[in-house]
């Protein structure tokens, strides 16, 4: 029943991957362009925005989760979507949590680039899309640091996921929430086993990314 069989473990792990990778992609899709914009040419108000983004990294996930959860609750403004305790709600919360980290790290990467770099690209008449692609290649190291850090954050996050997903068996139960659950049940062995799986997952993902990141240079 509450025993951890292979079947359950697999489905929890898959769900974890699904939620985390989706959130990661969304966070990147939103955060990278934002970071590139904020990290580029200075403009009035940029510093204020940066300060806000940076503060965002300190937003407690439990509260972010709570906010999102209340949004999706039956009584909440988005109650009609019937997304309370759903994977979708979890993803929304995760994206919100990862976003500031992604933006802040992309900003740091873009800002440390040689300022002439952007000018050189422009004067070669390279259109915007290609420019972005070249920029991403250029800030590869910083970008992958951002990806790995936010993946780590998303993967190990529990507070928001608990609030929005509710650890529903077979639906929104992911690795971290089950770890918490087993901890609260006093079944530390199962908790550790799941933690090992989580770390293993991260090891694989981070290992892959690290390979890419530092693969070219030796």
């Amino acid at each position: 029943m509450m025993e951890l069989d292979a079947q359950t473990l697999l489905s929890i792990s898959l769900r974890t991957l699904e939620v985390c990778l989706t959130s990661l992609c969304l966070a990147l899709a939103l955060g990278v362009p934002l970071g590139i914009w904020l990290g580029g040419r200075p403009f009035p108000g940029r510093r204020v925005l940066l300060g806000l983004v940076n503060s965002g990294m300190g937003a407690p996930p439990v509260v972010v989760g709570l906010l999102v959860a209340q949004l999706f609750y039956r009584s909440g403004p988005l109650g009609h979507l019937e997304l309370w305790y759903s994977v979708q709600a979890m993803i929304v919360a995760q994206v919100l949590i990862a976003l500031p980290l992604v933006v802040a790290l992309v900003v740091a990467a873009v800002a440390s680039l040689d300022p002439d770099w952007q000018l050189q690209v422009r004067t070669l008449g390279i259109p915007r899309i290609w420019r972005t692609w070249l920029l991403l290649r250029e800030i590869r190291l910083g970008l992958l640091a951002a990806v790995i850090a936010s993946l780590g954050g998303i993967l190990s996050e529990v507070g928001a996921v608990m609030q929005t997903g509710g650890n529903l068996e077979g639906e929104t139960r992911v690795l971290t929430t089950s770890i918490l659950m087993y901890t609260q049940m006093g079944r530390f062995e199962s908790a550790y086993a799941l933690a090992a799986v989580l770390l293993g997952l991260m090891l694989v993902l981070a290992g892959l990314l690290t390979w890419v990141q530092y693969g070219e240079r030796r």
Partner: protein
Amino acid sequence: SADDRETESLLLATTTSVRDSGLLEVLLPPFFDRTGVEVRTVAVGTGAALRMGAEGNADLLITHAPDPEKQLLASGAISERREIMENFFVIAGPAEDPAEISEALDAVEALRRIQNRKSPFVSRADDSGTHKKEVELMTRAGLDPSVRWPGLTRTGSGMGQSLLVAGQRRAYILSDIGTFLAFRGRVELKALTGPSKDLRNVYSVLLVSPKRFPKVRGREARLLADYLQGETARSIMDRFGVERFGRPLFVPIAVSGVEPEA
């Protein structure tokens, strides 16, 4: 699964201690088999569970805090409160029992001794059912529950966490029996009280009012409540915990305990 929840699924909010015992995981599958209604269980703090009920964010609740439950009933947010099972709280403490509470007549007396001797005591202080019981006992002992004394530790966290703290601090603690048994192996604490009347711990199922909250699935919720009071559920409860702890964790309450609809 997540897709057909629109048709046949129920959101049940329970306190963590119920979820942590593992009872629901054996109790609910037969209900699904029988009715095809899937029960999605969210375990939260007692306060949070009651609030979910009050705001119509769940279909039904299982809690063990009679007074607030009754208030909620009176407010009309829930339509029914049915006591389904019970067990006992225990006061656990270090085996040496410095406050000699094992010799106390009842729990009230035991608490009085602990406080008089300024013995270490861990309070959950989190508005949970267990904590409410503690406050009730304190008050009955003529003690002021809001008074702090050296040796009192207020954890503001769940039962398991609080038991761990008590274990480390060699302190007394009021705990529900289920969690205590689950953590028995990890904390060097001994149950120092027996099943006395004032330590009774009653679990009720609360049906959130579909009249007040149209989204609530009143029909299915009632089905579940009925099931929880039915033969199958009761026999499951009777057996639950025997294998792991050598005794049942919950005792079903006779159907006569059902209260009329408000």
